[in-house]
Protein backbone atom coordinates (compact mmCIF):
# COMPACT_ATOMS: atom_id res chain seq x y z
CA UNK A 1 0.00 0.00 0.00
CA UNK A 2 1.32 3.44 -0.86
CA UNK A 3 0.80 6.22 1.64
CA UNK A 4 1.74 8.84 -0.96
CA UNK A 5 -1.26 8.16 -3.16
CA UNK A 6 -3.88 10.69 -4.27
CA UNK A 7 -6.23 8.88 -1.90
CA UNK A 8 -4.06 8.97 1.22
CA UNK A 9 -4.98 11.60 3.83
CA UNK A 10 -2.83 14.76 4.24
CA UNK A 11 -0.63 14.16 1.23
CA UNK A 12 0.18 16.93 -1.23
CA UNK A 13 -0.91 16.40 -4.82
CA UNK A 14 0.63 17.90 -7.97
CA UNK A 15 -0.57 21.42 -8.82
CA UNK A 16 -1.89 20.19 -12.15
CA UNK A 17 -4.03 17.55 -10.47
CA UNK A 18 -5.41 20.10 -8.03
CA UNK A 19 -6.36 22.47 -10.88
CA UNK A 20 -7.89 19.66 -12.88
CA UNK A 21 -10.01 18.51 -9.94
CA UNK A 22 -11.22 22.05 -9.32
CA UNK A 23 -12.03 22.67 -12.97
CA UNK A 24 -13.67 19.26 -13.15
CA UNK A 25 -16.14 19.88 -10.34
CA UNK A 26 -17.05 23.32 -11.69
CA UNK A 27 -17.41 21.78 -15.16
CA UNK A 28 -19.73 19.07 -13.90
CA UNK A 29 -21.91 21.66 -12.20
CA UNK A 30 -22.03 23.84 -15.33
CA UNK A 31 -22.74 20.79 -17.49
CA UNK A 32 -25.60 19.79 -15.22
CA UNK A 33 -26.98 23.33 -15.42
CA UNK A 34 -26.81 23.24 -19.26
CA UNK A 35 -28.41 19.83 -19.33
CA UNK A 36 -31.33 20.91 -17.13
CA UNK A 37 -32.00 24.12 -19.06
CA UNK A 38 -31.13 23.36 -22.70
CA UNK A 39 -32.40 19.80 -22.31
CA UNK A 40 -35.81 21.26 -21.57
CA UNK A 41 -36.10 19.61 -18.15
CA UNK A 42 -36.84 22.88 -16.34
CA UNK A 43 -38.92 25.88 -17.44
CA UNK A 44 -37.07 29.26 -17.65
CA UNK A 45 -39.03 30.75 -14.75
CA UNK A 46 -37.68 27.91 -12.59
CA UNK A 47 -34.07 28.01 -13.78
CA UNK A 48 -32.69 30.38 -16.41
CA UNK A 49 -30.21 29.07 -19.01
CA UNK A 50 -26.56 30.22 -18.91
CA UNK A 51 -26.87 32.43 -22.03
CA UNK A 52 -29.90 34.21 -20.51
CA UNK A 53 -27.93 34.98 -17.35
CA UNK A 54 -25.06 36.22 -19.48
CA UNK A 55 -27.43 38.38 -21.53
CA UNK A 56 -28.99 39.81 -18.37
CA UNK A 57 -25.49 40.65 -17.19
CA UNK A 58 -24.44 42.30 -20.45
CA UNK A 59 -27.58 44.43 -20.49
CA UNK A 60 -27.12 45.62 -16.89
CA UNK A 61 -23.47 46.31 -17.45
CA UNK A 62 -24.38 48.26 -20.57
CA UNK A 63 -26.87 50.53 -18.85
CA UNK A 64 -24.56 50.64 -15.78
CA UNK A 65 -27.38 49.55 -13.46
CA UNK A 66 -25.34 46.57 -12.23
CA UNK A 67 -22.61 48.95 -11.08
CA UNK A 68 -25.16 51.10 -9.30
CA UNK A 69 -26.37 48.03 -7.39
CA UNK A 70 -22.80 46.94 -6.65
CA UNK A 71 -21.94 50.44 -5.44
CA UNK A 72 -24.84 50.65 -3.06
CA UNK A 73 -24.25 47.13 -1.70
CA UNK A 74 -20.56 47.83 -1.21
CA UNK A 75 -21.41 51.01 0.68
CA UNK A 76 -23.66 49.08 3.04
CA UNK A 77 -21.25 46.19 3.54
CA UNK A 78 -18.10 48.23 3.98
CA UNK A 79 -19.74 50.73 6.34
CA UNK A 80 -21.22 47.98 8.50
CA UNK A 81 -17.98 46.03 8.44
CA UNK A 82 -15.81 49.02 9.39
CA UNK A 83 -18.24 50.10 12.06
CA UNK A 84 -17.98 46.63 13.58
CA UNK A 85 -14.26 46.04 13.12
CA UNK A 86 -12.95 49.34 14.48
CA UNK A 87 -14.24 48.74 18.01
CA UNK A 88 -14.19 44.92 17.84
CA UNK A 89 -10.43 44.65 17.26
CA UNK A 90 -9.22 46.52 20.37
CA UNK A 91 -12.10 45.32 22.52
CA UNK A 92 -11.62 41.70 21.48
CA UNK A 93 -7.88 41.85 22.18
CA UNK A 94 -8.48 43.29 25.65
CA UNK A 95 -11.27 40.82 26.28
CA UNK A 96 -9.04 37.85 25.55
CA UNK A 97 -6.24 38.98 27.85
CA UNK A 98 -7.91 40.87 30.69
CA UNK A 99 -10.18 38.79 32.89
CA UNK A 100 -12.05 41.92 33.99
CA UNK A 101 -12.96 42.96 30.45
CA UNK A 102 -13.92 39.40 29.64
CA UNK A 103 -16.15 39.14 32.71
CA UNK A 104 -17.92 42.36 31.75
CA UNK A 105 -18.46 41.59 28.06
CA UNK A 106 -18.82 37.83 27.85
CA UNK A 107 -22.45 37.57 29.02
CA UNK A 108 -23.51 39.98 26.27
CA UNK A 109 -21.51 38.40 23.45
CA UNK A 110 -22.44 34.91 24.63
CA UNK A 111 -26.11 35.84 24.34
CA UNK A 112 -25.96 37.93 21.18
CA UNK A 113 -24.09 35.37 19.11
CA UNK A 114 -27.17 33.13 19.03
CA UNK A 115 -29.65 35.82 18.01
CA UNK A 116 -30.41 35.69 14.28
CA UNK A 117 -29.90 39.16 12.86
CA UNK A 118 -33.19 38.92 10.98
CA UNK A 119 -34.99 38.67 14.34
CA UNK A 120 -33.76 42.16 15.18
CA UNK A 121 -34.92 43.81 11.97
CA UNK A 122 -38.34 44.88 13.32
CA UNK A 123 -36.65 46.62 16.27
CA UNK A 124 -34.10 48.23 13.99
CA UNK A 125 -36.89 49.63 11.85
CA UNK A 126 -38.66 51.02 14.92
CA UNK A 127 -35.50 52.57 16.27
CA UNK A 128 -33.65 53.87 13.25
CA UNK A 129 -36.13 53.66 10.40
CA UNK A 130 -35.77 52.11 6.99
CA UNK A 131 -32.93 54.14 5.55
CA UNK A 132 -29.40 53.03 4.82
CA UNK A 133 -28.62 53.16 8.56
CA UNK A 134 -30.87 50.17 9.12
CA UNK A 135 -29.07 48.16 6.43
CA UNK A 136 -25.67 49.08 7.82
CA UNK A 137 -26.81 48.04 11.31
CA UNK A 138 -27.78 44.60 10.01
CA UNK A 139 -24.23 44.06 8.74
CA UNK A 140 -22.82 45.52 11.95
CA UNK A 141 -24.87 43.21 14.18
CA UNK A 142 -24.06 40.23 12.00
CA UNK A 143 -20.30 40.72 12.29
CA UNK A 144 -19.51 42.62 15.50
CA UNK A 145 -20.22 39.95 18.08
CA UNK A 146 -18.63 37.19 16.03
CA UNK A 147 -15.52 39.32 15.62
CA UNK A 148 -15.36 39.99 19.36
CA UNK A 149 -15.48 36.30 20.16
CA UNK A 150 -12.96 35.24 17.52
CA UNK A 151 -10.51 38.05 18.29
CA UNK A 152 -10.71 37.48 22.02
CA UNK A 153 -9.74 33.89 21.28
CA UNK A 154 -6.75 35.07 19.23
CA UNK A 155 -5.68 37.29 22.10
CA UNK A 156 -6.10 34.54 24.70
CA UNK A 157 -3.75 32.34 22.70
CA UNK A 158 -0.84 34.82 22.69
CA UNK A 159 2.03 33.10 24.51
CA UNK A 160 2.39 34.15 28.15
CA UNK A 161 6.16 33.70 27.81
CA UNK A 162 6.26 36.43 25.16
CA UNK A 163 4.66 38.81 27.63
CA UNK A 164 6.77 37.71 30.59
CA UNK A 165 9.85 38.07 28.44
CA UNK A 166 8.97 41.70 27.68
CA UNK A 167 8.60 42.36 31.41
CA UNK A 168 12.10 40.99 32.06
CA UNK A 169 13.38 43.34 29.37
CA UNK A 170 12.03 46.26 31.35
CA UNK A 171 8.62 46.85 29.74
CA UNK A 172 5.78 48.32 31.77
CA UNK A 173 2.26 46.88 31.70
CA UNK A 174 1.16 49.51 29.21
CA UNK A 175 4.18 48.85 27.00
CA UNK A 176 3.48 45.12 27.13
CA UNK A 177 -0.06 45.70 25.87
CA UNK A 178 0.95 48.17 23.16
CA UNK A 179 4.18 46.63 21.96
CA UNK A 180 3.63 42.92 22.53
CA UNK A 181 -0.02 41.97 22.89
CA UNK A 182 -1.37 44.05 20.00
CA UNK A 183 1.27 43.16 17.39
CA UNK A 184 1.20 39.51 18.46
CA UNK A 185 -2.55 39.45 17.74
CA UNK A 186 -2.32 40.97 14.26
CA UNK A 187 -2.09 37.79 12.15
CA UNK A 188 -5.07 36.27 13.95
CA UNK A 189 -6.97 39.55 13.69
CA UNK A 190 -6.40 39.69 9.94
CA UNK A 191 -7.65 36.12 9.57
CA UNK A 192 -10.73 36.99 11.59
CA UNK A 193 -11.43 40.08 9.50
CA UNK A 194 -11.12 38.01 6.35
CA UNK A 195 -13.53 35.35 7.58
CA UNK A 196 -16.08 37.82 8.94
CA UNK A 197 -15.93 39.87 5.74
CA UNK A 198 -17.12 36.71 4.02
CA UNK A 199 -19.95 36.45 6.53
CA UNK A 200 -20.87 40.10 5.96
CA UNK A 201 -21.58 39.27 2.31
CA UNK A 202 -23.94 36.51 3.42
CA UNK A 203 -26.03 39.09 5.32
CA UNK A 204 -26.47 41.29 2.27
CA UNK A 205 -29.87 40.03 1.17
CA UNK A 206 -31.19 40.22 4.73
CA UNK A 207 -29.89 43.78 4.98
CA UNK A 208 -31.65 44.81 1.77
CA UNK A 209 -34.87 42.99 2.60
CA UNK A 210 -36.68 46.11 3.78
CA UNK A 211 -37.37 49.22 1.73
CA UNK A 212 -34.30 49.11 -0.45
CA UNK A 213 -34.32 50.72 -3.89
CA UNK A 214 -30.92 49.54 -5.00
CA UNK A 215 -28.28 46.95 -4.16
CA UNK A 216 -27.62 43.39 -5.25
CA UNK A 217 -29.89 41.98 -2.56
CA UNK A 218 -32.65 44.30 -3.70
CA UNK A 219 -32.02 43.29 -7.34
CA UNK A 220 -32.46 39.63 -6.41
CA UNK A 221 -35.58 40.18 -4.31
CA UNK A 222 -37.13 42.36 -6.98
CA UNK A 223 -36.44 39.81 -9.70
CA UNK A 224 -38.16 37.16 -7.62
CA UNK A 225 -41.49 38.95 -7.99
CA UNK A 226 -41.37 38.59 -11.74
CA UNK A 227 -39.79 35.11 -11.64
CA UNK A 228 -36.79 36.53 -13.51
CA UNK A 229 -34.48 33.70 -12.61
CA UNK A 230 -31.78 35.04 -14.95
CA UNK A 231 -31.51 38.24 -12.90
CA UNK A 232 -31.59 36.29 -9.63
CA UNK A 233 -28.67 34.15 -10.80
CA UNK A 234 -26.83 37.22 -12.06
CA UNK A 235 -27.15 38.75 -8.58
CA UNK A 236 -25.97 35.54 -6.92
CA UNK A 237 -22.94 35.28 -9.20
CA UNK A 238 -22.04 38.93 -8.69
CA UNK A 239 -22.12 38.53 -4.90
CA UNK A 240 -19.99 35.41 -5.18
CA UNK A 241 -17.39 37.11 -7.36
CA UNK A 242 -17.25 40.21 -5.14
CA UNK A 243 -16.84 37.93 -2.13
CA UNK A 244 -13.93 36.19 -3.82
CA UNK A 245 -12.30 39.52 -4.67
CA UNK A 246 -12.53 40.89 -1.12
CA UNK A 247 -11.19 37.59 0.20
CA UNK A 248 -8.25 37.81 -2.17
CA UNK A 249 -7.58 41.41 -1.16
CA UNK A 250 -7.46 40.43 2.50
CA UNK A 251 -5.06 37.62 1.72
CA UNK A 252 -2.83 40.03 -0.20
CA UNK A 253 -2.96 42.57 2.61
CA UNK A 254 -1.93 39.95 5.17
CA UNK A 255 1.00 38.84 3.04
CA UNK A 256 2.11 42.43 2.56
CA UNK A 257 1.65 43.77 6.08
CA UNK A 258 2.39 40.66 8.10
CA UNK A 259 5.11 38.95 6.13
CA UNK A 260 6.93 38.28 9.42
CA UNK A 261 4.18 35.92 10.47
CA UNK A 262 5.11 32.26 10.18
CA UNK A 263 1.67 30.81 9.52
CA UNK A 264 0.66 32.11 6.11
Amino acid at each position, binding site marked *: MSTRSLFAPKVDIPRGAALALGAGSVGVLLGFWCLLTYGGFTPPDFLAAPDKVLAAGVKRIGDLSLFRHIGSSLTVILSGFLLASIPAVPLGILMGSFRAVQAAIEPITGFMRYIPVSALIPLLILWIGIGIEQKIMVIFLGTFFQQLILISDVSARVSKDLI*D*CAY*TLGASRRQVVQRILFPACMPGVMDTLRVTMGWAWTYLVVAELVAADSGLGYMILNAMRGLFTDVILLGVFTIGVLGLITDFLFKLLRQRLLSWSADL
Partner: protein
Amino acid sequence: MSLLALDHVTVRFKPKGKPEVTALDDVSLRVAHDTFAVIVGPSGCGKSTLLRLVAGLETPTSGSMALDGQPIAGPSADRGMVFQSYTLFPWLSVRENVMFGPKLKGLPKAECEDIADDLIRAVGLSGFERSFPKELSGGMRQRVALARALANDPRILLMDEPFGALDSQTRQLMQELLLEVWQARRKTVLFITHDIDEAIFLGDAVHVMTARPGRIKRSLSIDIPRPRDLDALTSPDFMRYKREVLHLMHDEAVLAATPRREAIRLAS
Protein backbone atom coordinates in the same frame (compact mmCIF):
# COMPACT_ATOMS: atom_id res chain seq x y z
CA MET B 1 28.66 39.32 49.96
CA SER B 2 26.63 37.34 47.44
CA LEU B 3 24.84 39.09 44.65
CA LEU B 4 21.66 37.04 44.93
CA ALA B 5 20.28 35.81 48.23
CA LEU B 6 17.14 33.75 48.72
CA ASP B 7 16.14 33.00 52.30
CA HIS B 8 13.54 30.43 53.32
CA VAL B 9 11.50 30.94 50.19
CA THR B 10 8.31 28.91 49.89
CA VAL B 11 5.87 29.02 46.98
CA ARG B 12 2.46 27.41 47.02
CA PHE B 13 0.09 27.42 44.08
CA LYS B 14 -3.60 27.08 44.57
CA PRO B 15 -5.10 26.19 41.20
CA LYS B 16 -8.89 26.51 41.06
CA GLY B 17 -10.63 23.25 41.91
CA LYS B 18 -7.36 21.38 42.43
CA PRO B 19 -5.33 20.60 45.53
CA GLU B 20 -2.68 23.08 46.59
CA VAL B 21 0.81 22.49 45.17
CA THR B 22 3.93 23.33 47.13
CA ALA B 23 6.33 24.13 44.30
CA LEU B 24 9.20 25.34 46.50
CA ASP B 25 9.67 24.54 50.15
CA ASP B 26 11.99 26.60 52.33
CA VAL B 27 14.64 27.23 49.68
CA SER B 28 17.71 29.22 50.59
CA LEU B 29 20.30 29.98 47.96
CA ARG B 30 23.32 32.22 47.48
CA VAL B 31 24.83 33.18 44.16
CA ALA B 32 28.17 34.99 44.29
CA HIS B 33 29.11 37.92 42.02
CA ASP B 34 30.31 36.98 38.56
CA THR B 35 29.80 33.26 39.06
CA PHE B 36 27.91 30.73 37.03
CA ALA B 37 25.34 28.95 39.20
CA VAL B 38 23.36 26.00 37.90
CA ILE B 39 20.27 24.44 39.36
CA VAL B 40 19.58 20.89 38.31
CA GLY B 41 16.60 18.79 39.25
CA PRO B 42 13.94 16.44 37.92
CA SER B 43 11.17 17.99 35.88
CA GLY B 44 8.32 19.44 37.91
CA CYS B 45 10.52 20.06 40.95
CA GLY B 46 10.05 23.82 40.85
CA LYS B 47 13.09 24.99 38.88
CA SER B 48 11.12 27.34 36.62
CA THR B 49 9.21 28.64 39.60
CA LEU B 50 12.50 29.48 41.32
CA LEU B 51 13.79 31.35 38.30
CA ARG B 52 10.51 33.18 37.76
CA LEU B 53 10.68 34.29 41.40
CA VAL B 54 14.09 35.81 40.88
CA ALA B 55 12.84 37.42 37.66
CA GLY B 56 9.99 38.95 39.65
CA LEU B 57 7.34 37.18 37.60
CA GLU B 58 6.12 35.22 40.61
CA THR B 59 5.84 36.23 44.26
CA PRO B 60 6.87 33.97 47.13
CA THR B 61 4.25 32.76 49.60
CA SER B 62 6.84 33.34 52.32
CA GLY B 63 10.54 34.07 52.60
CA SER B 64 12.69 36.85 51.22
CA MET B 65 14.78 37.52 48.13
CA ALA B 66 17.36 40.19 47.53
CA LEU B 67 19.67 41.24 44.74
CA ASP B 68 22.70 43.11 46.04
CA GLY B 69 20.84 43.69 49.29
CA GLN B 70 17.79 45.21 47.55
CA PRO B 71 14.56 43.23 47.97
CA ILE B 72 13.23 41.83 44.69
CA ALA B 73 9.78 43.13 43.85
CA GLY B 74 8.47 42.68 40.32
CA PRO B 75 10.35 42.27 37.07
CA SER B 76 13.08 44.66 36.03
CA ALA B 77 15.70 45.11 33.35
CA ASP B 78 18.35 44.28 36.01
CA ARG B 79 17.37 40.66 35.76
CA GLY B 80 17.38 39.45 32.17
CA MET B 81 15.89 36.10 31.29
CA VAL B 82 16.18 33.57 28.49
CA PHE B 83 13.22 31.22 28.25
CA GLN B 84 13.08 27.63 27.06
CA SER B 85 10.31 28.43 24.59
CA TYR B 86 11.17 30.65 21.65
CA THR B 87 10.28 34.15 22.76
CA LEU B 88 11.73 36.35 20.05
CA PHE B 89 9.16 38.92 18.99
CA PRO B 90 8.32 37.63 15.51
CA TRP B 91 7.37 41.05 14.09
CA LEU B 92 10.80 42.49 14.91
CA SER B 93 14.02 41.78 13.03
CA VAL B 94 16.98 40.26 14.85
CA ARG B 95 18.48 43.70 15.41
CA GLU B 96 15.19 45.19 16.59
CA ASN B 97 14.72 42.28 18.98
CA VAL B 98 18.11 42.86 20.55
CA MET B 99 17.47 46.62 20.68
CA PHE B 100 14.17 46.13 22.49
CA GLY B 101 15.51 46.63 26.02
CA PRO B 102 17.89 49.54 25.32
CA LYS B 103 15.14 51.32 23.38
CA LEU B 104 12.73 50.99 26.31
CA LYS B 105 15.40 52.62 28.46
CA GLY B 106 15.30 55.58 26.08
CA LEU B 107 18.85 55.29 24.78
CA PRO B 108 19.48 57.09 21.48
CA LYS B 109 18.85 54.96 18.41
CA ALA B 110 22.45 54.93 17.22
CA GLU B 111 23.64 53.70 20.58
CA CYS B 112 20.97 50.98 20.66
CA GLU B 113 22.11 49.81 17.25
CA ASP B 114 25.74 49.71 18.33
CA ILE B 115 24.87 47.66 21.40
CA ALA B 116 22.78 45.30 19.28
CA ASP B 117 25.31 44.80 16.50
CA ASP B 118 28.04 44.21 19.05
CA LEU B 119 26.08 41.45 20.75
CA ILE B 120 24.87 39.95 17.48
CA ARG B 121 28.53 39.60 16.55
CA ALA B 122 29.34 38.11 19.96
CA VAL B 123 26.76 35.35 19.48
CA GLY B 124 28.02 34.69 15.96
CA LEU B 125 25.08 36.00 13.98
CA SER B 126 26.65 38.86 12.01
CA GLY B 127 24.85 39.16 8.71
CA PHE B 128 21.48 38.20 10.19
CA GLU B 129 20.67 41.63 11.65
CA ARG B 130 17.77 42.15 9.26
CA SER B 131 16.43 38.60 9.33
CA PHE B 132 13.14 37.81 11.01
CA PRO B 133 12.77 35.10 13.64
CA LYS B 134 10.77 32.83 11.35
CA GLU B 135 13.84 32.54 9.11
CA LEU B 136 16.08 31.32 11.95
CA SER B 137 16.72 27.82 13.32
CA GLY B 138 16.05 27.02 16.97
CA GLY B 139 19.70 27.43 17.95
CA MET B 140 19.93 30.79 16.18
CA ARG B 141 16.79 32.01 17.90
CA GLN B 142 18.24 31.19 21.31
CA ARG B 143 21.44 33.03 20.39
CA VAL B 144 19.37 36.11 19.63
CA ALA B 145 17.44 35.63 22.87
CA LEU B 146 20.77 35.56 24.72
CA ALA B 147 21.98 38.69 22.94
CA ARG B 148 18.68 40.42 23.69
CA ALA B 149 18.87 39.59 27.40
CA LEU B 150 22.49 40.82 27.54
CA ALA B 151 21.66 44.07 25.72
CA ASN B 152 20.22 45.48 28.95
CA ASP B 153 23.52 44.69 30.69
CA PRO B 154 21.59 43.00 33.50
CA ARG B 155 23.15 42.36 36.90
CA ILE B 156 22.12 38.74 36.70
CA LEU B 157 21.25 36.61 33.71
CA LEU B 158 18.54 34.01 34.29
CA MET B 159 18.31 31.07 31.92
CA ASP B 160 15.51 28.51 32.09
CA GLU B 161 16.55 25.39 30.16
CA PRO B 162 17.38 27.62 27.20
CA PHE B 163 18.83 24.77 25.15
CA GLY B 164 16.25 22.20 26.18
CA ALA B 165 14.50 22.16 22.82
CA LEU B 166 17.70 21.86 20.75
CA ASP B 167 19.32 18.70 19.38
CA SER B 168 22.36 17.51 21.30
CA GLN B 169 25.03 18.75 18.83
CA THR B 170 23.51 22.22 18.69
CA ARG B 171 23.15 22.19 22.45
CA GLN B 172 26.86 21.44 22.93
CA LEU B 173 27.80 24.29 20.59
CA MET B 174 25.46 26.64 22.42
CA GLN B 175 27.00 25.71 25.77
CA GLU B 176 30.46 26.52 24.44
CA LEU B 177 29.23 29.78 22.98
CA LEU B 178 27.55 30.70 26.25
CA LEU B 179 30.76 30.08 28.20
CA GLU B 180 32.70 32.15 25.69
CA VAL B 181 30.31 35.08 25.97
CA TRP B 182 30.18 34.73 29.74
CA GLN B 183 33.97 34.63 30.03
CA ALA B 184 34.27 37.77 27.91
CA ARG B 185 31.61 39.77 29.75
CA ARG B 186 31.75 38.38 33.27
CA LYS B 187 28.17 38.18 34.33
CA THR B 188 26.42 36.48 37.18
CA VAL B 189 24.37 33.67 35.72
CA LEU B 190 21.66 31.51 37.23
CA PHE B 191 21.06 28.64 34.85
CA ILE B 192 18.49 25.89 35.05
CA THR B 193 18.61 22.48 33.47
CA HIS B 194 17.66 18.88 34.00
CA ASP B 195 20.74 17.76 32.04
CA ILE B 196 23.55 16.71 34.38
CA ASP B 197 26.35 17.06 31.80
CA GLU B 198 25.18 20.55 30.97
CA ALA B 199 25.08 21.51 34.65
CA ILE B 200 28.63 20.36 35.39
CA PHE B 201 30.09 21.63 32.11
CA LEU B 202 28.76 25.14 32.68
CA GLY B 203 28.67 25.70 36.41
CA ASP B 204 30.94 27.04 39.11
CA ALA B 205 28.33 25.78 41.52
CA VAL B 206 25.68 23.13 40.94
CA HIS B 207 22.64 23.01 43.20
CA VAL B 208 20.72 19.75 43.07
CA MET B 209 17.02 20.04 43.82
CA THR B 210 14.70 17.46 45.31
CA ALA B 211 11.49 16.37 43.67
CA ARG B 212 8.23 17.84 44.90
CA PRO B 213 8.20 19.78 47.05
CA GLY B 214 11.29 21.46 45.63
CA ARG B 215 14.17 21.95 48.03
CA ILE B 216 17.88 22.37 47.48
CA LYS B 217 19.28 18.97 48.35
CA ARG B 218 23.00 19.53 47.90
CA SER B 219 25.22 22.27 46.53
CA LEU B 220 28.49 21.29 44.87
CA SER B 221 31.26 23.56 43.85
CA ILE B 222 32.70 22.48 40.50
CA ASP B 223 36.44 22.89 40.43
CA ILE B 224 37.13 22.16 36.80
CA PRO B 225 39.53 24.74 35.39
CA ARG B 226 38.32 27.25 32.82
CA PRO B 227 38.21 27.78 29.95
CA ARG B 228 36.47 24.44 29.62
CA ASP B 229 36.38 22.68 26.29
CA LEU B 230 35.07 19.39 24.94
CA ASP B 231 37.82 17.45 26.72
CA ALA B 232 36.52 18.66 30.06
CA LEU B 233 33.48 16.47 29.41
CA THR B 234 35.54 13.28 29.71
CA SER B 235 38.02 14.33 32.40
CA PRO B 236 38.19 12.26 35.61
CA ASP B 237 37.02 15.25 37.66
CA PHE B 238 33.99 15.64 35.44
CA MET B 239 33.17 11.94 35.84
CA ARG B 240 33.49 12.18 39.61
CA TYR B 241 31.04 15.11 39.76
CA LYS B 242 28.74 13.42 37.33
CA ARG B 243 28.67 10.26 39.42
CA GLU B 244 27.76 12.25 42.49
CA VAL B 245 24.99 14.23 40.82
CA LEU B 246 23.66 11.13 39.06
CA HIS B 247 23.18 9.40 42.39
CA LEU B 248 21.53 12.42 43.95
CA MET B 249 19.21 12.76 40.96
CA HIS B 250 18.45 9.05 40.80
CA ASP B 251 17.21 9.02 44.38
CA GLU B 252 14.97 11.93 43.48
CA ALA B 253 13.63 10.28 40.36
CA VAL B 254 12.67 7.21 42.42
CA LEU B 255 11.01 9.43 45.00
CA ALA B 256 9.20 11.42 42.35
CA ALA B 257 7.79 8.24 40.83
CA THR B 258 6.66 6.74 44.13
CA PRO B 259 3.76 8.95 45.16
CA ARG B 260 2.26 8.54 41.71
CA ARG B 261 2.35 4.77 42.06
CA GLU B 262 0.70 5.14 45.44
CA ALA B 263 -2.01 7.32 44.00
CA ILE B 264 -2.80 4.76 41.32
CA ARG B 265 -3.01 2.02 43.93
CA LEU B 266 -5.35 4.16 46.03
CA ALA B 267 -7.55 4.97 43.08
CA SER B 268 -8.06 1.36 41.97
